[in-house]
């Protein structure tokens, strides 16, 4: 049975309850959806329901952090990153408080709830915050690892978890380390840098490209901030062109972050796969990814384009 990022988070948080007495959890009326209900059931004294009040959620979490705890404040991506943006900025980041903002339903795969609930701008608005670490795990196993790592590192962390089940591609490629991308496939013609559910699409794309004789390397850039500049530069040197793929706008997210690194160090062709400055809509997750240009075939097309830009 395939699991989702939020499943991995829920499992990790429950274990953290056992191993780390400083870990507490907060929720804004979405306990089961974020999978924090397991923790809530086992550690009711360390769980705080704040109700539908996300700005209060973040502030209260900051207060807990400032008394020495490691709070995981949970809600949907849009409600944390957008509605509580200023609270994250001041109470978490400017205080450099040890608040972990674990959000589910990032991206189009949020599905039928539609555009209002599909966060496509959150990576951009979180990575621009000083002191913030931004992690987008690819699957349930990586979400589990990332949650544990987030509890270990000091400072604000934005952990963007997926709603939908995805195949696990990330295991067997070394241990999880914040800020260190995982290379999942080797290649010399083009580098596919993906995060979250798009890692699975990138793997599929690399297999499709292989059938055309194009050797694509696949990089799982789970940490958007601090981004693994060494890997980006090394890949650019090796393959000479990059494709980024994210469940987010092509503006300001993973694509933006990679563009920043490339243009200052090694300007090679870059093609960004993501939503094209648009809101989403209701639909089934896979259908939405296809409609909005986030299918494996879109990554394939982007790769061909990037390669052609290399030659000209």
């Amino acid at each position: 049975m395939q699991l989702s990022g939020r499943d991995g988070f829920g499992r990790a948080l429950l274990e953290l309850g056992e191993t780390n007495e400083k870990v507490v959890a907060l929720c804004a009326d979405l306990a089961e959806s974020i999978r924090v209900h397991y923790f809530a059931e086992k550690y009711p004294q360390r769980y705080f329901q704040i109700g539908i009040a996300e700005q209060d959620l973040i502030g209260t979490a900051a207060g807990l952090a400032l008394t020495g705890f490691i709070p995981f404040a949970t809600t949907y991506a849009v409600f944390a990153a957008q509605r509580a943006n200023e609270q994250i900025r001041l109470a978490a980041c400017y205080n450099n408080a040890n608040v972990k903002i674990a959000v589910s339903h990032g991206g189009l795969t949020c599905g039928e709830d539609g555009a209002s609930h599909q966060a496509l701008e959150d990576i951009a608005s979180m990575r621009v915050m000083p002191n913030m670490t931004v992690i987008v795990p690819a699957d349930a196993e990586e979400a589990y690892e990332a949650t544990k790592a987030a509890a270990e590192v000091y400072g604000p962390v934005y952990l963007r978890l997926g709603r939908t089940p995805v195949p696990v591609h990330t295991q067997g490629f070394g241990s999880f380390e914040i800020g260190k991308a995982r290379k999942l496939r080797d290649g010399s013609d083009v580098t596919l840098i993906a995060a979250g559910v798009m890692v699975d699409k990138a793997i599929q794309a690399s297999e499709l490209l292989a059938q055309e004789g194009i050797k694509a390397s696949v990089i799982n850039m789970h940490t958007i901030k601090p981004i693994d500049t060494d890997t980006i530069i090394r890949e650019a040197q090796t393959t000479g062109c990059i494709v980024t793929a994210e469940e987010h706008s092509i503006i300001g997210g993973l694509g933006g972050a990679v563009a920043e690194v490339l243009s200052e160090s090694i300007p090679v062709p870059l093609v960004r796969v993501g939503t094209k400055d648009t809101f989403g809509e209701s639909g089934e997750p896979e259908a939405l990814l296809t409609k909005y240009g986030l299918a494996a075939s879109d990554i394939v097309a982007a790769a061909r384009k990037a390669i052609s830009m290399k030659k000209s």
Partner: protein
Amino acid sequence: MKSINEIKEISTRIKRDVIQLTSHNTGHPGGAIGAADIIAELYFSRMNHDPKNPDKEDRDRFVLSNGHICAALYSALARSGYFPIEELKTLRKINSRLQGHPSRKDLPGVETSSGPLGQGLSIANGMVLGNRLKNINAKVYCFVGDGEIQEGQIWEAVMTAGHYKLHELCLIISWNDIQIDGRVKDVMNIEPIADKFKAFGWNTLEIDGHNLHQIRAAFDLFEQFDNAPTVIIARTVIGKGVSYMEHKPVWHGKAPSLEEAEVALQEIGPSSFGEDLVF
């Protein structure tokens, strides 16, 4: 506990500091002067805190949510011994630890950064919840402006404190009916204040925010309440004691000139607690 007269001298010292600091730098004098009496009672008579050990776990905490009146907080912290009194002169200057709005990472004694209004009470609530988990029986005092309670987040936090019966929490509202664009009742009416808090399950007390006896009595009552959070609705006057500042919105954020400062210091009168800063 210090005598009322001693607190009066300290409050006067804080007001003198505020006038001196803001007139030599920039800043927000009016509300800071209006808060001096309450801050003096808290820092010098009531709160369990140790300037030499700002992080001591069981300390009482003061969250200044309306961070713009930080000149008063900085004065209280310096005059208590958290940092050298001379350093007060650096308010708002580049590279200073005394930022224009409080910065937790910079200055010992600042419990949280603040400035953007409406955020402090949520943070204060979190501190109470954290203390409870550690079985620490400490108080958390949160100070807000009256205009500030126009912010929606305040009411989220008020609801949370009521729901969790955070009796260790004391909210103080500086009710001076002044905000930047005019009188609060004209800009966006917030009354009836006490009724609102009662509806959210709070204990409510209303006092003259410049009457030191009433301030003390209100905090004494707060310490006895064990059923619900408490709000002290303190009637204050912006720029209290300075004739040209009282009741005038412009003194929210305008620093007095050096000449105006001289007049203010005359009117406020001398303080036997500590010395004037020398510039």
